[in-house]
């Protein structure tokens, strides 16, 4: 039997969970909408129309992270791993698009190789999803294998049914958490029907569509069409917004901060949109802007599908909404020459 929780009781629920977890929830306290440590009272994010600007990947792959400290003494370099905080994170209010993005990131950080920094946080984390009731104009999740209320990649999924949230128990981890949580009400048949209605309504509200059929092959065929890439790249300003704030982009740079014989090695977000990203001593294979734009598109829609059989885009729409020049990836995909030719 599924449970439900009154909207008024969310604060109480989060307080309960705070005893066991480091609860993170959407917040604007830092000046930008992002997942942040829950302050113990604010639940205004439940009414937010939009998703966070900073994607929840930041809780697992932070913008900047210390990898280890090092020190030089008589015996050589001493390495000191970063202090593990041991905290279990509970991300409350993660949207289905971002939860799917986490599953996509797992393919790189767990399947392709084991990234200890990422997995340390990821394996212990609980994701509690919050279904969208009002998808944005820039959202196209339904085209990317997910939906505004998709429970696939979370442990628990909350669906707005008026005064209450209907709780869908998805994973064993989620079920266990609910079993240990007191004060939840039993959901009725009617609640279940309401939840189903909410799912359908939200699904139908997503107006932006992208036909994913054949994208990979289209891109492969038009890969060398320099004229096309130059044209679509013309207005790009090569900033890092669409990549750094993409929930599935994971590129990072590694640098040392040195202070007199000791230091810290950091990794921090990097972007293939930057011209220096591929700079090497002798050459830069992506010196021209169109090559970088092509890389960004193809990595998500061609190379990632080749490696993992999934498109590394979840339709969250951040790149469209936040772009300084309204560079719209759905328009670009639709205008790939091989695709236009195929459609005729």
């Amino acid at each position, binding site marked *: 039997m599924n449970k439900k929780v009154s909207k008024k009781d969310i604060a109480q629920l989060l307080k309960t969970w705070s005893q066991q977890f480091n609860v993170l929830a959407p917040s604007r306290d*830092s000046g930008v909408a*992002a997942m*942040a440590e829950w302050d113990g009272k604010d639940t205004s994010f439940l009414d937010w129309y939009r998703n966070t600007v900073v994607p929840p990947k930041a*809780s697992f792959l932070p*913008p*900047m992270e210390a990898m280890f400290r090092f020190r030089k003494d008589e015996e050589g370099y001493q390495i000191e791993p970063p202090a593990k905080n041991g*905290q279990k994170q509970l991300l409350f209010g993660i949207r289905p698009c971002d939860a799917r993005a986490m599953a996509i990131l797992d393919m790189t950080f767990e399947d392709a190789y084991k990234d200890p920094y990422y997995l340390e946080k990821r394996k212990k984390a609980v994701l509690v999803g919050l279904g969208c009731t009002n998808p944005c104009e820039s959202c196209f999740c339904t085209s990317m294998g997910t939906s505004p209320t998709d429970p696939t990649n979370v442990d628990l999924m909350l669906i707005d049914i008026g005064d209450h949230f209907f709780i869908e128990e998805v994973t064993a981890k989620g079920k266990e958490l609910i079993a240990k949580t007191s004060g939840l009400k039993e959901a009725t048949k009617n609640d279940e029907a309401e939840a189903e209605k909410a799912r359908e309504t939200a699904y139908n509200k997503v107006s932006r569509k992208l036909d994913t059929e054949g994208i990979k092959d289209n891109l492969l065929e038009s890969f060398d069409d320099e004229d096309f890439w130059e044209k679509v790249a013309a207005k790009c300003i090569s900033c890092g917004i669409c990549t750094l704030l993409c929930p599935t982009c994971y590129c990072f740079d590694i640098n040392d901060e040195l202070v007199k014989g000791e230091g810290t090695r950091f990794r921090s977000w990097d972007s293939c949109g930057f011209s220096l990203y591929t700079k090497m001593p002798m050459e830069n294979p992506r010196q021209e802007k169109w090559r970088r734009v092509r890389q960004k598109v193809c990595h998500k829609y061609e190379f990632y599908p080749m490696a993992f059989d999934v498109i590394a885009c979840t339709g969250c729409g951040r790149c469209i909404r936040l772009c300084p020049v309204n560079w719209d990836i759905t328009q670009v995909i639709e205008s790939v020459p091989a695709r236009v030719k195929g459609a005729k």
Partner: protein
Amino acid sequence: MKQESEWEPKLLGFLCRWCSYAGADLAGTSRKKYPANIRIIKVPCSGRVDSLFILKALRLGFDGVLVSGCHPGDCHYQTGNYRARRRIAITKRFLEYLGVEPQRLQASWVSASEGGKFSEVVTDVTQGLKEVGPNQLFERKKNGAKAKAGSKGTA
């Protein structure tokens, strides 16, 4: 407060090689006294001093920066000090707007014959820095102490 009186400011001086550096030399050879708080970097001209040098010095923990060059009209390269003046003027005003104490960026014209003036300037500037106290502008401890967007629990 006792500790503060023991603290000595560190001042970084960028001195033009034609005038102010020679002025500092003269101060030394004529046995003028000035505080040992200044560390000197010889630059070809005050116009060589990029605002970035000033910021970097403050970021590295210097308590103040002094830029010194030839008097207006006396630049070895004709116009270097005029350009320095514009650049330092906007840098100084901008830093003060951001909240940097005015004493931390100082400038002077000291000619090769002004050993006395050089020692006075360094004495004055050092005194000013003693009054404002240590440079804590870029203290690292602040970083990460507060909740920052998405980067909780790290660096």
